[in-house]
């Protein structure tokens, strides 16, 4: 019998370890993005349009006040040079205008559709055997988490929903804590009791979770005894 005692070369990391790290990083990213619906696309489009408008506003203001020369400031907005250029090849410029209009229309409609589209709630598909597929609806899966989470000590109420896609679902849980809640204990029990059961029941050993903590509003005391 021979035993290989050679040390692994640090320059060539174990492929299993690096694969596992990549999977962990993916799960962390999915749990981060499950915290709330992302508005990054809308934000950057807004910033981009804002930058274009700001640059145009500053440029035209400087031009108006003669920073680029008084002769240039005195020229008409619809410059005859531009009119002549367009008139020289009208078919080309019409085609460019139509193509630009179509691009704007498609981009605008895509932006509207993306902005008003409700967040997807994926169902969970369980493998029930060779010819059986069990579908757990998103609402049922979420309720199966919210009900036991709401009964944990220190939790006034809880809400859960599945987010992401059917291929890569994630769970978003919102807990309304009571004033006397021990946050560490609540999180520990949520993970050890509620989420462990959910992962097992839904057959999702890798289910990223985003937990949002809120504080239960105290009920106002009656003003008349």
């Amino acid at each position, binding site marked *: 019998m021979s035993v290989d005692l050679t040390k692994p070369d640090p320059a060539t990391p174990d492929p299993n370890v690096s694969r596992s790290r990549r999977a962990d990083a993916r799960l962390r990213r999915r749990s981060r993005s499950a*915290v709330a619906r992302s508005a990054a696309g809308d934000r950057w*489009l*807004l910033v981009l349009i804002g930058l274009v*408008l700001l640059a145009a506003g500053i440029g035209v203001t400087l031009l108006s006040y003669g920073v680029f020369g008084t002769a240039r400031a005195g020229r008409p907005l619809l410059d005859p040079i531009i009119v002549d250029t367009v008139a020289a090849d009208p078919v080309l410029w019409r085609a460019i205008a139509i193509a630009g*209009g179509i691009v704007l229309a498609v981009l605008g409609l895509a*932006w509207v559709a993306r902005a008003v589209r409700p967040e997807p709630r994926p169902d969970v598909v369980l493998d029930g055997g060779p010819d059986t597929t069990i579908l757990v609806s998103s609402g049922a899966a979420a309720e199966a988490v919210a009900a036991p989470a709401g009964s944990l000590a220190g939790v006034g109420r809880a809400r859960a929903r599945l987010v992401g896609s059917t291929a890569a679902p994630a769970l978003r849980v919102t807990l309304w804590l009571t004033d006397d809640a021990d946050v560490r204990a609540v999180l*520990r029990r949520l993970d*050890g009791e509620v989420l462990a059961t959910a992962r097992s029941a839904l057959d999702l050993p890798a289910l990223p979770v985003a937990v*949002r903590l809120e504080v239960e509003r105290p009920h106002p005391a009656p003003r008349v005894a």
Partner: protein
Amino acid sequence: MRAVLRVLAPLLGIAVAVAGVLVVIEVVAAWVLPGTASGLLVPWPDWGDTLASLSWNQNPVPGIAIGVGVIGLLLIIVGLAARRSEVRLQAPRADMTVTTSPRVLARLVGTRVRDSDDVLSASVTASTRRVAVTALAWHDAPPDLREVIVSRVQVLLDELPLRRRPRVAVSVRKQEGVQ
């Protein structure tokens, strides 16, 4: 700001789409019906005449340009300020993310500070980096009340598994005019 973004994003998308459709309709109409003197939906020949007779240094061009620049600046501010404000907490697992809002953290701190018998009222502002407490104390409150409040807030922060511990700043005012 996030609510403003939610309203603005579809409105701007509609505006961009409508502008594109109008361009296509007007260009095609002008191409197919070359004899028409005015536009189909938009009076662009009139606009063209106005733009041809107006120079860059004439009013209202600078005013409109400044207005456009201000609108651009406002859009940039809304876009940058609409990011999620959240306080991260340590999670029991790597594939779990736990967050709360600065408002919740401020409320927890405020409840803990107001529990003190010597504190009449307290206002709290909280962020990931800093918790600031302004407490109004009874006129006969002990002189070391500030240290007591700091200690109470520190104990609360110890209890919360925050990923980043915020600095604590406490100022105490005593109620005046009561003997």
